[in-house]
């Protein structure tokens, strides 16, 4: 198989798994309820907090808050999906079938986690709509052409981060509980909730190696930045690539360990 046809085949696999997983999410009452209700709560809290700020809560600040809280929802969904990607397959008794399939399991997992993140971007839309409808937030982007680029890059970056999380969760039966622990620290450390400049200096290096930091930066930069957010977009992609390479290596190790320890099918 030539490199080009191999690439085409791999992209087709990721796209098919993505579409399949999206379909499952769209008929899951539980997933929809979580995705619909949670971002509205987040958005309301954030808007009220910034309104209390009085004069400081200008229109740009409201958009800053809206984009941050939207990303909080995206991250929650990514984390939930990343932790759940393996657990759900175990519950359905399909994990062994996916691992034993001739096609690469890392691409299957990537398609699943990309779908989770894509679904999570509903949070962003819901938050912005909530802001416009209830709080009169203007929806003007300073760099309108870069906004969809930033959103796409954010989906890819967070999707791959979800894959990295999922790979480490293969070995653990209670991955969902572990994923809950990571929700709030990342909200803080990546500047979703408060600007990074307000955080202690020692948190800086941690923030810089987290994809959501640059994803938030890219989206905010495109919406309200004074300069085009090229650095954030490139950093997001570079980190996504690093995460993907790491995820693939970890996946090879954990699948091998699961075959050795007989833990693939443990529900």
């Amino acid at each position, binding site marked *: 198989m030539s490199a080009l046809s191999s690439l085409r085949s791999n992209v087709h696999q990721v796209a098919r798994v993505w579409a*399949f997983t999206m379909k*499952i999410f769209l008929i*899951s009452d539980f997933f929809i309820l979580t995705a619909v209700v949670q971002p509205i709560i987040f958005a309301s809290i954030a808007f009220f907090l910034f309104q209390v700020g009085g004069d400081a809560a200008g229109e740009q600040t409201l958009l800053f808050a809206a984009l941050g809280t939207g990303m909080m929802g995206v991250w929650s969904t990514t984390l939930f999906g990343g932790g759940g990607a393996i657990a759900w397959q175990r519950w359905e*008794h*399909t994990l*062994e*079938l996916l691992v034993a*399939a001739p096609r690469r399991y890392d691409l299957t997992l990537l398609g699943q986690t990309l779908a989770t993140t894509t679904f999570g971007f509903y949070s962003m839309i819901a938050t912005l709509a909530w802001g416009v409808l209830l709080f009169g937030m203007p929806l003007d982007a300073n760099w309108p052409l870069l906004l969809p680029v930033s959103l796409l890059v954010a989906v890819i970056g967070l999707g791959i981060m979800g894959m990295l999380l999922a790979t480490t969760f293969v070995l653990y039966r209670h991955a969902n509980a572990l994923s809950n622990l990571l929700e709030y620290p990342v909200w803080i450390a990546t500047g979703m909730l408060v600007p990074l400049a307000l955080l202690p200096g020692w948190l800086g290096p941690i923030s810089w190696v987290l994809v959501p930091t640059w994803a938030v930066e890219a989206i905010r930069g495109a919406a309200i930045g004074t300069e085009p957010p090229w650095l954030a977009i490139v950093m997001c992609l570079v980190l996504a690539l690093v995460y993907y390479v790491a995820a693939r290596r970890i996946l090879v190790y954990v699948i091998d360990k699961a*075959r050795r320890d007989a833990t*693939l099918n443990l529900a």
Partner: protein
Amino acid sequence: MTAASTAPTNIPAIEAQDLVRTYRTHLGVIRRHSIEVEAVRGISFDVRSGELFGLLGPNGAGKTTTIKMLITLLLPTAGSAQVMGFDVVRDTTEVRKRIGYVFGGEGGLYDRISALDNLRFFAELYGVEPAAQRPRIDAMLDLVGLAGREREKVEGYSRGMRQRLHIARGLLHDPPVLFLDEPSLGLDPVGARELRRTIADLVAAGKTVLMTTHYMFEADALCERIAVINGGKIVATGTGSDLKAVVANRTIVEIETYGVTAEAVDRLRADPDVIAVNTEDQDQSQILLVQSERGTEITQRLIQQLGDTRIGKISAREPTLEDAYVHLIASTGGEDGDSAARAAAVA
């Protein structure tokens, strides 16, 4: 996509040599320690191309562990195995291209979406070319008798339909070798019969099938050769006739009893002409299966030894494959004969 054409014909489709699999289990909370359990203890066998080979044994005998090593989901602790000449540890991708795996019971499908969506998804993962996916799916739906029902959600399917969908899934990439792990588990008699017909059709079409089951009747009806496995070891291999020969020189006396005591059964076992006694619990009664040398008349003595036990029907008959199975399992320790008899009786 057909992987079968790439396989050399002069080698067994499946070959296992001294396969061993040990599980480590952790015990205790504060003072944790681990113990090792040998699920498979040096199993060797081979399956010819186009053969339907049965692994027959009670629950916990090591059947599923053996299959999972052969389909690359578990690494053997020792020994080796090849499928179509490819090593199950080193050549996992090549093995996976050439095998289909179907297991019984619930699970293994996405219930809330249609059978068609399930098959489309797995067709992709099994490497079926996009243009060939729909024709292949249609062909598999026809084969398993689900054509016309493919747009229904799987959650509305009966156990038999689910099982046939599993087989369709396992055959999507036209693998030459099919592993069926207790495929009739939980099926009603009609569903089980339909499934057996489908399996027979697959073998007639040239597939190599390795099937595990603890139903004697199923193995006898389908398999060309059977390996009886117990306690992680193969205790006998051969055709149904070969296995029956183990008890060929015996007579089976079946005694229907009500409320028979363990002491009464022990008295029967102590009789010098009795070779083995197995019991099958039924709703209100217990069936005693007493094996003795052919030509030995012991019925009257058995009735006397049962004492006050209420007795129903008594009959003598030729030994069956089921008796051979029960004898093999009971005589090799790991599972008591009663349980084996119950497993056999379910079929």
